[in-house]
């Protein structure tokens, strides 16, 4: 149970990377003779309205979720790190300006803003990642700013400054290394959140669009066939929950590790 997060996330990465080798069928193959087959040994999770194999679609679906979540989280972390450091080190007026912008973005319900942006720009992988990045950086920024403000008054940072270290050297050598742990934990929780938002938007038809099967889209297709084929909705949702729980437990495990590391 303690290592659930590590195992879960590893399993998901494995599925996403090796989806073409693991899936028994082409996820987009249309086979109208085999519509709505209940789960069997041949079709582990049954087939949908087009006769496509649900199991294969779910394996491929891991790709889109992880690609979107990884892109969004790496970009929000980078933006949050840079802008948060700027606010933390940049003096009172810069800090005030940056934090008011952060307040507004943070005060906006993130899912709604992402939804409106994708709706305005049109559903595509690029726009989805863009919208989720624009709404997600504020939280990281707050976190980084607070930490930077705490760290910058340490004696070793003052010492570095006295020895002539510039802003970048102070950040890269003396401040950022202290943030790695907390950012990794935050990223892990953010992955869980991003996967949830991505599937929610895909469910509403505002996801990555195109041919790639995604869990949210599968769920929304399955919603229309609940009476004949409830299994179409059952399995992709299970995967989303598994994914979110895995990343959350990974984050929790890493957090505990850091807390313990600080105590000893």
């Amino acid at each position, binding site marked *: 149970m303690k290592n659930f997060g590590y195992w879960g996330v590893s399993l998901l990465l494995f599925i996403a990377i090796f989806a073409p080798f693991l899936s028994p069928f082409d996820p987009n193959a249309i086979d109208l003779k085999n519509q709505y087959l209940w789960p069997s040994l041949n079709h582990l999770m049954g087939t949908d309205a087009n006769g496509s194999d649900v199991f294969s679609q779910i394996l491929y679906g891991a790709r889109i979720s992880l690609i979107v979540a990884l892109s969004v989280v790496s970009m929000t972390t980078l933006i949050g790190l840079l802008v948060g450091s700027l606010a933390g080190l940049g003096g009172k007026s810069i800090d005030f300006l940056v934090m*008011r*912008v952060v*307040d*507004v*973005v943070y*005060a*906006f*319900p*993130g*899912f*709604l*803003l992402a*939804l*409106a*942006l994708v*709706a*305005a*720009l*049109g559903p595509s992988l690029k726009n989805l990642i863009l919208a989720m990045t624009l709404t997600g950086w504020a939280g990281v920024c707050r976190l980084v700013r607070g930490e930077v403000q705490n760290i910058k008054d340490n004696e070793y940072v003052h010492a570095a400054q006295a020895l002539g270290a510039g802003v970048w050297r102070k950040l890269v050598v003396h401040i950022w290394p202290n943030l790695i742990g907390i950012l990794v934990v935050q990223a892990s929780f953010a992955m*869980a959140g991003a996967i*949830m938002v991505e*599937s*929610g938007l895909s*469910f*509403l038809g*505002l996801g990555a669009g195109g041919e790639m099967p995604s869990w*949210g889209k599968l*769920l*929304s297709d*399955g*919603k229309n066939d*609940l*009476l004949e084929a*409830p299994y179409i*909705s*059952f399995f992709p*949702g*299970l995967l*989303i*929950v598994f994914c*979110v*729980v895995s990343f*959350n*437990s990974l984050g929790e495990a890493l957090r505990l590790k850091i807390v313990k590391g600080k105590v000893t």
Partner: protein
Amino acid sequence: MFKFIIQRSVVTLFTAIGVSFLSFFVIYAIPGDPVDVILGDMASALDKAQLRKELGLDLSIFLQFKEFILKTFTGDLGTSYFSGRSVSHLILERLPATLSLGFFAMLMAMAFAIPLGVYSAVMKGKAQDRIMSLSSMILMSLPVFYSGPILIWFLALKLGAFPAGGRDGALSIFLPALSLALPLGAILFRMTRASMLEVLSKDYMTSAWAKGCSWPQIYMVHGLKNALIPVITILGLQFGTVLTGTVITETIFNWPGLGTLLFEAIGERDYPIVQACVLVTALVYVGINFITDILYSLAQPKMREMSS
């Protein structure tokens, strides 16, 4: 206290203006011309120019924003591109359904989460506590677009106990509210449990036992009353999640609220409605956060001193 309220009001006002700018800008970011959406590609240049003027689209972005804010304050949110109806009317028609769904979901979540949270804290480490904590971990990650269809399939289609969708009769609110309440309740449960555990270890609890208080008095009066303070804050913060959750929930259950209005408007590219729905939801969210802040400071004077 008064100073604190004024301070928070000013901050909230600025946030509200910022939020309005953001929802205005989202629609401004649309590639292509809204006039083409309304008139179609076949319209003449003259018609387009005239409509552009009517809608104020020929002005600069700042003038447009000024216009937007002024109109918003007077309650004018524009007219729908397609039905030609006033957007404020459409919103007012739909808002009660969304708010009642949101509040009912919160009540439901509180009704099972708070007693179970207290029970779990009292039973810490026992089997009941472990099972409940584990289930809450899973329920917390249960998206409404998963629980919704499963609830419809089981409770509406299989058992026929509840209607599968629409807003018809008192029973129809139950399923959409339940699908919103499950993850919310799981979070509240965890919060109540953690907060109650902290309170249970306090000295005043020991002295209450020593005084010979009965156990309901100890857990409810001394324990829960103090443990609820952080729960209130979480409740306020979670209201935003509930509000955005209603967008998806309403489309699943065909609930005639803001969410379905927004969803339909997105499909028809009826941008004034999209803009207004986003704005109103965001403003409600900002307002609820303001109220939470005030309530929290009433319950916890320490908080007030810290921020002033």
